[in-house]
């Protein structure tokens, strides 16, 4: 890897930026392939990389399961994001209410998501409703807590400035409080989605017949390790794509645009 670093800056750096991260993946796949060749383990214990990469194309329910999981995640997350932000802003506007809800939020955060699965199964029965509730539950308290905190941290002086200039309460909320709290809202949303996605998988593992979690758990009964590993890797790819390519850039842009509310513009 040190040899690559000798390349000339402009083109070399771009190549390096893309090539370098590929190296560990390549090594890992090579080692995996080699291990399969050398030790020849049963397919049910460790299939070859090729088998795992083919699995999605050979398995009909793959796409339906991916679709079901992603759909549940999006649904639950949208509800969590909207309720979390709205309720969080409302609660954050009042200091006593925010202080009152603070400890409760911590407590709920501590057991959000996965710990609710048994109760959710009792309430909704197995299936989509239960999984969506769990996603909502996993994400809501993070979004709510962060939003409330972000609102509380918007300096009063900015609100008073607008009020002095004749703005209405609504104007202040729209133009000062929500933008001011935006960096916190975004980081709440981002970690909410991360916890939400893990919660989808866990909920499906024990309480659904469709979805990636249900699928890999069912494949375990048939020792279809190729499908299990394909499913697990898919879970990783989806989680990473959402976080790195959707929410991280959004968060960065939000912080760049509104993050410095306190000090310079």
């Amino acid at each position, binding site marked *: *890897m040190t040899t*690559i*670093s000798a390349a000339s800056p402009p083109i070399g750096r771009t190549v390096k930026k893309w090539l*370098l*991260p590929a190296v*560990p993946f390549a090594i*890992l796949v090579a080692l995996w392939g080699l291990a399969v060749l050398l030790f020849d383990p049963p397919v049910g*214990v460790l299939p070859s990389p090729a088998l795992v990469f083919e699995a999605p194309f050979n398995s009909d329910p793959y796409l339906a399961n991916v679709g079901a999981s992603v759909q549940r995640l999006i649904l639950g997350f949208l509800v969590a994001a909207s309720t979390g932000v709205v309720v969080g802003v409302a609660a954050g506007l009042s200091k006593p209410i*925010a202080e*009152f809800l*603070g*400890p*409760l*939020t*911590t*407590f*709920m955060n*501590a057991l959000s*998501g*996965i*710990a609710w*699965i*048994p*109760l959710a199964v*009792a*309430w909704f029965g197995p299936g989509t409703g239960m999984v969506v509730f769990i996603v909502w539950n996993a994400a809501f308290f*993070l979004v709510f*807590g*962060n939003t409330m*905190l972000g609102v*509380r941290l918007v300096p009063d002086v900015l609100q008073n400035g607008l009020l002095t200039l004749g703005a209405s309460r609504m104007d202040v909320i729209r133009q000062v409080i929500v933008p001011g709290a935006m960096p*916190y809202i975004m*980081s*709440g949303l*981002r970690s909410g989605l*991360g*916890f939400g*996605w*893990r*919660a989808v*998988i866990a909920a499906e*593992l*024990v309480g659904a017949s469709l979805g*990636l*979690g249900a699928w*890999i*758990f069912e494949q*375990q009964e048939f020792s279809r*390790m190729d499908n299990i590993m394909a*499913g*697990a*890797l898919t*879970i*990783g*790819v989806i*989680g*990473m794509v959402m*976080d*790195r390519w959707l929410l*991280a850039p959004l968060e960065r842009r939000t912080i760049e645009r509104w993050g410095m509310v306190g000090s310079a513009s």
Partner: protein
Amino acid sequence: MVKPASTTTATGKDLGAVRAAQSESPGLFGVAGLSSVIRALLPFVVAILAWWAIWAVLDPPEIILVSPASVFGSFIDSIAEGALPTFIARSLARLGIGTLIAIGLGVPMGWLLGLDEDVAQAAEPIMRFFNAVSGIAWLPAMIIWFGFTETTIQAVIVYTMLFPVAFNAMIGVRTIPKRYRDACRTMGAGTLRIIRDVYMPGSFPSVMTGLRLGIGFGWRALIAGEFVVGTTAGGGLGFFIFDARTQGVIGKVMAGMIVLGVLWLLMDRLILRPIEETINVKWGAVSA
């Protein structure tokens, strides 16, 4: 170049953010006296009253919701039976062992990877990827490899905690200002000395961020693991609530959930926060 703040702090900060939200109000174990204890407990009292009112008004069937009194009864019963204390001990032991293994493997791994910028840059995406393939997603594979055993639960916890810990240890080393290293070198320090006196202490705050994130994920992975594997692997709190649901005893389910929440708060206030504060007081300046 590994970006210092934007990536990790993003994940670390949000948890910190929620934490800071509570520090506005007096903590559960704040030393500020009786009035602050009452103020901290009041929200919970009100929440329990609200729950009681909802239960009384809706009069739901017993398999949907039970009264706080009935949950308390289930809690006492479960303690008397001995199941709950055993399961609490078992879950905490699993988390403790998992944490120790994850620190033992993850921190040195992160430090090593962080020593060289190119290596760190190469390692970042793959660590992010395996962090995104959550331990829960590996559960079926682990079952095949290790069976419905203790090993499976432990492996899932360690896996889940390893990547946040290692990743943040690595970032911690990468974000130490180079002039500290250079200053030590100028004064004649060798590489080992620099690792010991600059990289290790300088990365502590970041390691702690990783650990907190890891325990948050690991705690949930533990519960999920115990749902699925607990029957044959000797129970645990996750198994306790899962099994109670199967029996249709919602009082036990809710008692178990409350125990989970309380345990987390206790761990947070009595272990994590004191360590974090010590680290920040002693070494925090480095990251500023």
